[in-house]
């Protein structure tokens, strides 16, 4: 521990603490635009400068460790004036389009300009000539609004290890783009959307699909069906005025009906199906085909995309099971349509997802049309849904809780934890344990796959055998796990793991690229806690015990991994090069 002074206040912090962090401990907020708790300090915006007595230069608070006996001044007339100059300079190369920007009211630059009371343009606007890139249909890049803080580049390279985004050119022409000036679609981008979740301005945002949803809702011909992913219910509250992690499932169901949806389903039902299918797949491999181990989860479309581009060697280990919302989509246009006598052609399925990659997933391969139609018509993110709710004049806070519609709406505790890292693994192990032993677990909660360590490893004894598992979240962490697998394969050794879960976003879907802004590990933890408590509150906590699911298999599907299950619930993978051009 070292002792120093900030604005005359004594602060005691561990060695290596930055001035920025140390200041927070004594309730001093130093403004920044580029620093982000998820990322290494880049020191690019130049706003967090502070003075230290005895040092001639000003220091950047975000990356300078506070030293013993340092005497820091964070705010005085000179510092504030320089910060104001820098903000005004940044504003001079940022279009004045706040009122028509997705980030209106959530923009960090806008907030800073307001805080500093910037009331006029001091410098003439520099009009950058940079292309708009909406090629992925999932993430839209408006480079005019980019302030080059570099968060997205660090997210893409350091956190996600994808390297789709990089800096091009220099000086005033510097910009963020895929190397070689190709479009994002042609780049290795996996559409995880973490760049958009970390962008301080409106330079990278989700592709806005709300107009299509509004149009569908207003079309009397269409029977509009909505489903909601597990992670959305504990995150949307951030925008609607609730404390982080508040579970709003049943208020959301009510809101969907107010919005005009004809049927309200829950992706959690699909998650239960996924577990039954994937669990069966795992049990088969574990007990009968150990050479096919490890089994790797495939619910995360960004991860699937990454694997198809970067890790051709592990394709055979991928679970062929579709992601939950695709299962619900396929069932809505087959099972549900048949049962309720709707023409599947007129059913319009909207998925509310924490994720931008899901926008891409719905057209990813021919298996996404298993019903004979496009199984899911539109994906909108949590952020887009929040905007729709606000637009529609719903007093969300006062809504009375409602339930989902039957057939595809019931879910178990195992399904709801799909939204957090380790959750798919945990849910699958519960069902696999039953499938192998025929019994129930003494302790249903697997603590060693919970939490936010980048890679979590565990060994679970089942019936005299040990199931070795690994859970990775944040694509940057997956390399370690896969390298171990590949290495063991090369040496002809036993695989280091039997079952691997990967989610592309840090924390899993609760920290997804389409979730409300301002995510930190604290908020991720609150959202995870929300899902874990939803699990505990569920009467049924094993996927295979879901009564609606049992009815589905009895009436329509038959056996897990059976013919109809294969057709509706499973998919295939192709490999292709990282760059399309």
């Amino acid at each position, binding site marked *: 521990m070292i002792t120093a002074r900030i604005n005359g206040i004594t602060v005691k912090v561990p060695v290596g603490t930055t001035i920025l962090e140390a200041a927070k401990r004594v309730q001093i907020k130093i403004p920044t635009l580029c620093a982000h708790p998820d990322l290494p*300090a*880049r*020191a*690019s*915006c*130049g*706003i967090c*400068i502070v003075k230290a007595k005895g040092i001639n*230069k*000003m220091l*950047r608070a*975000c*990356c*300078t*460790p506070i030293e013993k006996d340092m005497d820091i001044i964070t705010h005085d007339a000179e510092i504030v004036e*320089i*910060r104001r*100059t*820098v903000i005004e*300079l*940044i504003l*001079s*190369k940022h279009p004045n389009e706040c009122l028509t920007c997705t980030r209106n009211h959530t923009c960090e630059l806008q907030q800073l300009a307001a805080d500093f009371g910037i009331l006029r343009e*001091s*410098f*003439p606007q*520099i009009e950058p000539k940079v292309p708009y890139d909406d090629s992925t249909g999932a993430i839209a890049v408006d480079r005019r609004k980019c*302030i*080059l803080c*570099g968060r997205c580049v660090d997210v893409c390279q350091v956190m996600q290890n994808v390297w789709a985004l*990089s*800096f091009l*050119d*220099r*000086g*005033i*022409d*510097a910009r963020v783009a895929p190397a070689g000036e190709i479009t994002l679609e042609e780049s290795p981008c996996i559409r995880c959307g973490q760049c958009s979740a970390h962008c301080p301005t409106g330079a990278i945002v989700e592709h806005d699909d709300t107009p299509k949803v509004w149009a569908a809702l207003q079309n009397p011909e269409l029977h509009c069906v909505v489903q909601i992913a597990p992670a959305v219910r504990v995150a949307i509250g951030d925008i609607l005025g609730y404390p982080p992690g508040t579970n709003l499932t049943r208020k959301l169901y009510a809101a969907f009906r107010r919005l005009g949806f004809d049927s309200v389903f829950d992706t959690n039902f699909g998650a239960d199906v996924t577990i039954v299918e994937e669990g069966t797949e795992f049990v088969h491999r574990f007990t009968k085909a150990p050479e096919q181990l490890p089994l790797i989860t495939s619910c995360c479309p960004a991860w699937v995309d990454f694997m198809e581009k970067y890790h051709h060697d592990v394709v055979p280990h991928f679970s062929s099971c579709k992601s939950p919302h695709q299962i619900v989509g396929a069932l809505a246009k087959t099972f549900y349509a048949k049962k309720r006598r709707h023409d599947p052609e007129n059913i319009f399925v909207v998925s509310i997802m924490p994720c931008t990659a899901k926008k891409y997933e719905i057209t990813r391969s021919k298996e996404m049309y298993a019903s004979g139609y496009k199984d899911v018509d539109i994906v909108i993110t949590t952020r887009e849904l929040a905007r729709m709710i606000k637009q529609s004049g719903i007093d969300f806070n006062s809504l009375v809780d409602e339930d989902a519609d039957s057939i595809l709406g019931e879910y178990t505790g195992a399904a709801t934890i799909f939204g957090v890292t380790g959750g798919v693994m945990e849910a699958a192990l519960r069902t696999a344990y039953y499938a192998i032993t025929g019994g129930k677990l003494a302790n249903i909660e697997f603590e060693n796959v919970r939490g936010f360590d980048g890679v979590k490893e565990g060994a679970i004894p089942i019936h005299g055998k040990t199931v070795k598992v690994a859970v990775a979240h944040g694509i940057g962490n997956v390399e370690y796990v896969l390298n171990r697998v590949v290495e063991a394969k090369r040496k002809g050794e036993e695989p280091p793991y039997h079952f691997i879960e990967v989610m592309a976003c840090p924390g899993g879907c609760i920290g997804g690229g389409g979730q409300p802004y301002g995510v930190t590990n604290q908020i991720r933890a609150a959202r995870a806690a929300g899902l874990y408590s939803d699990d505990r509150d569920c009467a049924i906590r094993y996927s295979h015990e879901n009564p609606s699911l049992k009815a589905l298999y009895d009436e329509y599907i038959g056996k897990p991994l059976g013919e109809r299950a294969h057709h509706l619930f499973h998919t295939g993978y192709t490999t292709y090069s990282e760059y399309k051009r």
Partner: protein
Amino acid sequence: MSKQTIFLLRDTSLTQDNTRDFQILFLKIARDLGVEDSIQAVRASDLGIYDKGYVVKDLNNKITYANIQETDIEKFLKATIKGEGSVDEFKYTADKCQLRIVLRNCGLIDPENIEEYMAQQGYCALAKALTEMTPETVIDEMKKSGLRGRGGAGFPTWMKWSFARNSLDETRFVVCNADEGDPGAYMDRSILEGDPHAVVEGMILAGFAIGAQRGFFYIRAEYPLAIKRIETAIEQAYERGLLGNDILGSGFNFDLEIRLGAGAFVCGEETALIESIEGKRGTPRPRPPFPADKGLWNHPTIINNVETLATVAQIINRGGEWLAAIGTEKSKGTKVFAITGKVKNSGLVEIPMGMTLGEVVFGIAGGVLGGRKLMAVQTGGPSGGVIPLKLIDTKVSYEHLAEVGSIMGSGGLIVMDEDDCMVDIPRFYLRFCVEESCGKCAPCRIGGFQMLKILDRIAEGKGVEADLQQLQRIAKGMQKASLCALGQTAPNPVLSTMKYFPEEYRQHVEDKKCRAGKCTKMVQYTIDQTHCKKCKLCVVNCPVGAISGSREAGYVVDQVKCIKCGTCYEVCKFKAIVRK
């Protein structure tokens, strides 16, 4: 064969280089006189003497002769070889001498021959360090010498070395920063090309002192000859066991390799240079951690400039006190400058610290070209400041230059006369920095661009009073909030000219006039018919055919066609061209 006299020949005239013809003639006359076996006549690439006609240096007797005409060669050879007659009238002595420490071998030895370097005590310092000294005593010697980094910032070299030496991490690197990029500067290039082994020896000594195993030369790719000579020097050093494993049987291992810079100015900034060597985009890293603590691949790394490293061997040979005796209290030793601009003898000079700018400009460099009046001197390249005539007695040293708002920099020295515009000059430098900004941090990226826009406006005659305040405001933001020295120092030329030449800025902004006629948008050339003698010299010389007319009607300048190059103004013998 009797002992030969070795002559170095050099044409030092400013306009042409006839050294080769002179050498052929010299050898022919020697043959005619039958003394060709008694002499060697070698062409030198630079003797540090300028504008003194043909210069011959007698290496054996260490006498230099200048202003020798072709017709004097016979007399010269008779006197020097046969002892018949005297040539004392040609003897050259500079009144205020350069002191060549770093450049001592440049132009004198064959840089591609290690033996010639060794004949000048080359690698003696290495042998001495490896056999008689410890890394600590080497650093001690550096401390005694007071040598400070010659790259510009002037950080004490020994201190950098001891930071790395004392690190707990034992994988350490030495980097030679040869990414010289200031416009008009070629000090490092000349050293690398002229005395590559001195830099290699300095690298090995630095490696020994800090306990490094590997060293990198970071040379800009635009210096192909320097690269080739360093390659050769490294090769030769390996052949002689001066590099590689167990150097000179001491047990010390050190390897050297070359990395090429791709031409980004910012890569001369040490943390950007590290990124570049690591194969990343060359942008600065935040400091701390400093490279001496966490540099290349996060290992302790010292980065020294070419000139710094070229001084090291001589400090070890002659002892730290020797260097410390030269210079001022805080700046020791010598500094190499590349003098350019409106000066008679432009070129490379090495001077002891503490000499005044006036002594350099008027003494060594021979004063302003064409006998015009000196306006200002600029040091430190695009990061430096402009120093006005009234401060010409400022001493050349880190501390004195900083006092007047400039910096030592890496050694660019540009002389300006009355024809230079004090708004146009900083605009040139700022444009350079704006183009070379890496774009990483906002103050430099946008601040520099906006400052340049304001200067452009002022130069076009569209400036307003408030622009001057805006310049100051942005400059302050850049100085205080930029991440690296490029952005922090980029406003210096603007700030120093605003400080010393406020009248020029005022003229540009208020009167819409450029005294020097450099800001062409505000200049108009017309012909004063009362002075015009109808000689047509202006018509003939105008590059765009903007002047037309007849002897009868007179000649006029077409203001639309005119590109304001000023040629007519210069060629007119009758002062009939009016510049307004």
